[in-house]
């Protein structure tokens, strides 16, 4: 292992790789196929979520929020932490900075109660979105934009009944996450057939693939695989093929590639909670409130953004937006 890196060999290597880059251009695919100031007062709004970094779903929420912020001349500060205590600290930070409004997710309502009260006392309006449909009023938020995991799960289960499914496999990519468990439970409660739960290691796609394949091999009665996130639906297709199973795939949430799989018929449907809409509305609401005193739902009713079904019947309308990464 006595490598000697001489200058000349480094130059040769550099030239060789440059030549490779030039010679290796792809004739198709890739980015070669791709290609706004307002006169209103500027508001500073903080958006604080419980998102895991690097999740495509939350990325779409953020894009919606960014779009609303740009349109309404809002200075948007986005931050997130899956840890409840850290999320509360982030809210505290926003209050200390004197923002004009706070949009937050209530994945752990109890942990947020104190900081929301503090914000209200400081005269900062708070809007809840995405999670916390049962708690937003108690916590002290002004309005709620989002859906409910139970409603989404129930809709999913009913749809499976319509499709004539007998045995559904609910694939959970992260153990012990309340939202995911609720989806699975609601699906199970409303679905007339049998529901089996399967935990997979969402950190390692190869492990997701093989665990799913193992499950499908060991139980051939499974005729529907329900994944709780779009990337896992794509992997489920691979597992089904490898296991020689005849199961169909349906999923919660979408992303760009999933849309193309619905288009070509390999994925049956997706239950969409319209994350873009959640992000957009919860920011735009501040503009309405701060500039005109409007607020949706009258402080009593949540504003539902889903569940919406995406399947072959409406996919064409959605596909072009999914391409941009906003659906």
């Amino acid at each position, binding site marked *: 292992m006595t490598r000697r890196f001489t200058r000349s060999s480094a130059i040769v290597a550099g030239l060789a790789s440059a030549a490779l880059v030039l010679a290796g*251009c*792809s004739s198709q695919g*890739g980015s070669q196929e791709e290609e706004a100031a307002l006169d209103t007062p500027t508001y500073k709004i903080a958006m604080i979520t419980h998102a895991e970094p*690097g999740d495509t779903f939350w990325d779409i929420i953020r894009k919606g929020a960014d779009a609303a912020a740009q349109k309404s001349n809002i200075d948007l500060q986005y931050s997130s932490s899956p840890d409840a205590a850290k999320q509360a600290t982030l809210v505290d930070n926003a209050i200390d900075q004197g923002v004009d409004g706070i949009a937050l997710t209530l994945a752990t309502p109890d942990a947020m109660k104190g900081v929301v009260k503090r914000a209200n006392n400081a005269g900062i309006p708070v809007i809840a979105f995405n999670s916390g449909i049962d708690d937003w009023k108690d916590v002290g938020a002004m309005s709620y934009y989002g859906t409910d995991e139970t409603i989404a799960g129930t809709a999913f289960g009913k749809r499976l009944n319509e499709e004539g499914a007998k045995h559904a496999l609910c694939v959970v990519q992260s153990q012990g996450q309340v939202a995911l468990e609720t989806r699975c439970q609601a699906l199970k409660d409303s679905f007339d057939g049998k529901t089996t739960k399967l935990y997979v290691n969402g950190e390692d796609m*190869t492990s997701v693939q093989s665990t799913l394949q*193992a499950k499908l091999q060991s139980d051939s009665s499974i005729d529907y695989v329900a994944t709780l996130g779009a990337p896992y639906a794509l992997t489920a297709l691979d597992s089904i093929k490898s*296991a020689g199973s005849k199961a169909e795939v349906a999923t919660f949430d979408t992303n760009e*590639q999933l849309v193309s799989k619905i288009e070509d018929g390999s994925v049956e449907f997706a239950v969409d909670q319209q994350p873009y809409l959640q992000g957009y509305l919860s920011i735009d609401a501040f503009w309405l409130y701060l500039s005109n005193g409007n607020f949706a739902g009258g402080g009593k009713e949540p504003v539902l953004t889903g569940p919406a079904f995406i399947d072959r019947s409406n996919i064409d309308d959605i596909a072009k937006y999914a391409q941009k990464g906003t659906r």
Partner: protein
Amino acid sequence: MTAGGDPARITKRSLGRRFVTRPEVGSLVGAIAVFALFFAVAMPFRELDSLSTVLYASSTIGIMAVGVSLLMIGGEFDLSAGVGVITSALAAGMFAYELSLNVWVGAGLALMLSLGIGFLNGYMVVKTKLPSFLITLSMFLMLQGLNLAVTRTVTGSVASPPISDMDGFASAQKVFSSTFTVGGVSVQLTVLWWILFVALATWVLLRTKVGNWIYAAGGNADAARAVGVPVNYTKIGLFMTVGFMAWFVGMHNLFRFNTVQSGEGVGQELIYIAAAVIGGCALMGGWGTAIGAAIGALILGMAQQGVVYAGWNPDLFMFFIGATLLIAVVLNLWVRTRAHRR
């Protein structure tokens, strides 16, 4: 230093004894026990198709475990190995897509990046003389952040762009992620790569100069230096070997799934280290084999899949994996202490 005691009493060691004192024997017994357990309780586990799935699950752990075990024998850790896989896959995907290159070129650039990360890890460890645990923990956290930030900056999303319609994808998929059929059972090519890498690592360890240096660097670096072994080069080389393996597994992920999410890979480094340790690698270095690490990966793969095949309560999934591991590790220890006491 305890075995043998008075030199006069040491007699010629029999072939059998030499076999049971090999580092991988304990894990082999553990593997047989885990296999027997699931063979008994899980009907579907007995199918050949299932064996192929188990081998696939083991192979992606096992390929990384080859690099990680060599490094551990050389006396160092790499906590950045798990996210390093994802870094490499993201880099290859983004290079190819954003620069509209043949995916092979993207893969080549990613290889340089992975080797570079390995080199940097190794260089900092030998230069600062800090524990590799700290250096690579820092690298792990930095890569975790960079995976997300760079992917978002470059693609505007948090996953690498799809590249399945680009030049070279088909041939790259053949190399990194295709299947072949043995006796009617379809097997992932990664299983063959895994066996090849284990064989190569075993040959290097036992039959080459470099192998001697790896054991010496981990066993007693000062002694090795005193007789002229290039300990620093050896260690840097080992970190780069881990980088190479991370690249390989990253390419498998990319070409199998077409796109990679930037948040993946966290926590995998412990699985790789676990495979090496179950396989008999000493945490302090200087002891272990690549075959042992392969058996360790097999135990992990069997536990992961066996719980599913057995249809045990999914809420206890992690518990069962943990319990299986514990059984394997305790058996391993039992065999080893018995072997050395005799």
